[in-house]
């Protein structure tokens, strides 16, 4: 019999969208001097959500000046315990408003509500709670007897986890006594603007957090502004490179979290059904818009014939559709531009001769959608094995020996994440020791925790966020 789950959409009524959103500078909302606005869309149906101001150089200057004043007069002078109180207050307000934030994040980004509700928002609150706890204990962090804040931090974050990336950046910066000017991505600015309201609600001193919306030029103006002491960026390797160039020669500190092409290694003795789950969450979580996604499956040749049908069977059960439906597993691609890029790269794989498979899957007629896709018969020489696709597309490769698995896993310009699936502890440790990646998951994938440092090797960037290590990027 067919068991059709009835649609179970989360109510939009918890979200009050304003027509236009201005910049958040020095504790208040103010229009951009240039008077320019951009429109943010719901990627699931292409409807307009709101207009947000585009910050120009003058606005950046205003925000940096406000942040500097707040740093000099209030925030850096405050005791750690007092700063901690503000962070705890912010964390609690986030929890109280988590349903509203989850729905808004889902509308703005296109990711399923079950991920914003069950993953993003709990982690966002946890990051603020975690770093709130560090605020009065910095001298016990193993970073010297009297670690000092750096000053004003310029932070530029991506569209894949808008609020979570904000938390990763803002929480440690504030805990350590820095003030921030943050630019969210142009396609997903809305939860950052609600976060600005939360800062007001928490009575955070004006200027400690400033939020400037806009696109690439806004980010560039912010990063290049001489009044900032620290730049933190999460996004593409290409933009990261240009930021590194512009910061070179200044005394600004820089951390970069860039792209990835994570290997998910499945040995022949793995718990096969759980490995299939891990492969699915490794690449289809957040539509594959995850820099640490397990986008290259390396499966031992002797079990490839058994694993692949199971994987296809499982992928066929993924439910794609309305991101606000609580039963949706795969939501929309964030933007038309990203959809185009995924198409281009996936097509190039087909042209290069890899086999392409997607389950029978009805895509909604409006919005940006891409069916979950497996590319098999992939070799290291194919573009789809080398370049980051940043979409729900898994490249499947095989290996015969552990040495070969490690060699293939490391044979990439990136080094952000890897997964290893085996029931044998010694093989797990042998492999993990040899993988050149910042995070290695053992019999799991895409698990995050505020206490655990996260960051990359090679072209995946430098510096660590999260955990005690995450404090280091904001202390001198």
């Amino acid at each position, binding site marked *: 019999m067919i068991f059709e789950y009835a649609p179970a959409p989360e109510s939009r009524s918890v979200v009050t969208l304003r027509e236009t959103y201005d910049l958040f500078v020095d504790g208040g909302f103010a229009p951009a001097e240039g008077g320019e606005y951009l429109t943010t869309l719901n990627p699931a149906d292409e409807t307009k959500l709101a207009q947000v101001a585009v910050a120009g150089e003058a606005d950046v200057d205003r925000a940096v000046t406000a942040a500097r004043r707040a740093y000099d007069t209030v925030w850096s002078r405050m005791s750690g315990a007092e700063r901690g109180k503000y962070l705890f207050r912010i964390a609690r307000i986030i929890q109280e408003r988590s349903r509203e934030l989850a729905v808004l994040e889902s509308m703005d980004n296109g990711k399923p509500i079950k991920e914003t509700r069950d993953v993003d928002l709990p982690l966002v609150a946890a990051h603020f709670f975690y770093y709130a706890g560090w605020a009065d204990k910095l001298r016990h962090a193993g970073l010297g007897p009297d670690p000092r804040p750096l000053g004003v931090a310029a932070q530029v974050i991506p569209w894949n986890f808008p609020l979570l990336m904000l938390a990763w950046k803002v929480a440690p910066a504030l805990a350590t006594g820095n003030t921030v000017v943050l630019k969210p991505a142009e396609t997903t600015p809305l939860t950052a603007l609600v976060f600005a309201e939360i800062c007001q609600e928490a009575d955070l001193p004006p200027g400690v957090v400033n939020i400037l919306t806009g696109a690439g030029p806004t980010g560039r103006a912010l990063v290049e502004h001489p009044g900032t002491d620290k730049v933190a960026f999460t996004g593409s390797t290409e933009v990261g490179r240009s930021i590194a160039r512009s910061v070179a020669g200044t005394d600004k500190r820089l951390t970069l979290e860039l792209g990835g092409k994570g290997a998910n290694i499945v040995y022949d003795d793995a718990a096969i059904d*759980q490995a299939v789950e891990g492969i699915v969450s490794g690449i289809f979580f957040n539509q594959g818009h995850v820099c640490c996604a397990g986008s290259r499956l390396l499966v031992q040749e002797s079990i490839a014939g058994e694993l692949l049908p199971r994987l296809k069977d499982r992928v066929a059960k993924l439910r794609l559709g309305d991101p606000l439906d609580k039963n949706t597993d795969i939501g929309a691609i964030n933007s038309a531009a990203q959809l185009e890029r995924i198409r281009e790269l996936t097509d190039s794989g087909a042209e290069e001769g890899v086999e392409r498979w997607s389950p029978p899957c009805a895509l909604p007629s409006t919005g940006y959608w891409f069916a979950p896709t497996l590319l098999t018969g992939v070799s290291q020489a194919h573009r789809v094995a080398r370049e980051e696709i940043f979409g729900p597309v898994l490249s499947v490769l095989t290996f015969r020996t552990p040495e070969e698995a490690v060699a293939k896993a490391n044979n990439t310009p990136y080094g952000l994440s890897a997964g290893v699936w085996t029931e044998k502890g010694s093989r797990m440790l042998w492999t993990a020791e040899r993988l050149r990646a910042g995070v290695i998951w053992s019999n799991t994938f895409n698990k995050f925790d505020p206490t655990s440092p996260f960051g990359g090797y090679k072209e995946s960037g430098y510096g660590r966020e999260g955990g005690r290590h995450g404090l280091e990027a904001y202390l001198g």
Partner: protein
Amino acid sequence: MPVSHTATAPEATTNRALRAFLHGLPGVDEVGARARAQDLATRSIKTTAKAQAIDLAISMVDLTTLEGADTPGKVRALCAKAALPDPADRTVPRVGAVCVYPDMVATAVEALRGTGVGVASVATAFPAGRAPLEVKLADTRRAVADGAVEIDMVIDRGAFLSGDYLKVHDEIVAVREACGPAHLKVILETGELVTYDNVRRASHLAVRAGADFIKTSTGKVAPAATPPVVLVMLEAVRDHHAATGARVGVKPAGGIRTTKDAIRQLVLVNEIAGPAWLTPDLFRIGASSLLNDLLMQRTRLTTGTYPGPDYYTQD
């Protein structure tokens, strides 16, 4: 489907061969199995889907009384309820079966005559199973002779845990034969097997020995039918089907008390084994108090209000 290594059971049945087969099955990662079950528990089943699920669950209930204090009167009352769960609403489907101790089979068969509801019996020295094989076989034959159409047998957990898979296997084969035309449900008592690896092995062992159903528990041991255990058993029957084309049923029993619990089980069935298992022929829920909650939720859906517990019969 390609040949799976879960499929290649050995031809010659020796303890060694069984051991090689069972220990050659892929392992189960506990954390991952729990996470998957937890993820499926967040499926939101509402309105039409919920109405469909409730009627399906009612038709899958093996309405059970397994108490030392059972009397013919109690069993007859249960049978009346099985055939007509809600006298106030004749659209409610009848349950899957009534499950009783062997000495109550004749009473139940008599009470259910003409209703279409079958009688299941926990023959085989339930719940411990600690009796000689001849006793278990006699118990089974007698229950079938009295009219039981389904036999719920317990496996010898002691033999399983000591690695004597052959003994477990041969007992199932023998009971299967003693059942004649009756269906055989093999109770693994997963709470005593403890690990998910053991649950997977016991599932394949029972299937290979001829079980028509594999069942989690007697209801006398906790934990019983937890979602991850049911998930592992559903994976076993799915793999068996992929390898041989044959479908074996699954019956969780013990601890399923609310409609929400039951619906979560149905979601597991739908997404792990597949929709083909969503029938009383391949999925049953062993329960006693669940039925009233299903009836209450059903009324809530049709009328919009919750009736009080006294609107449903207590036994």
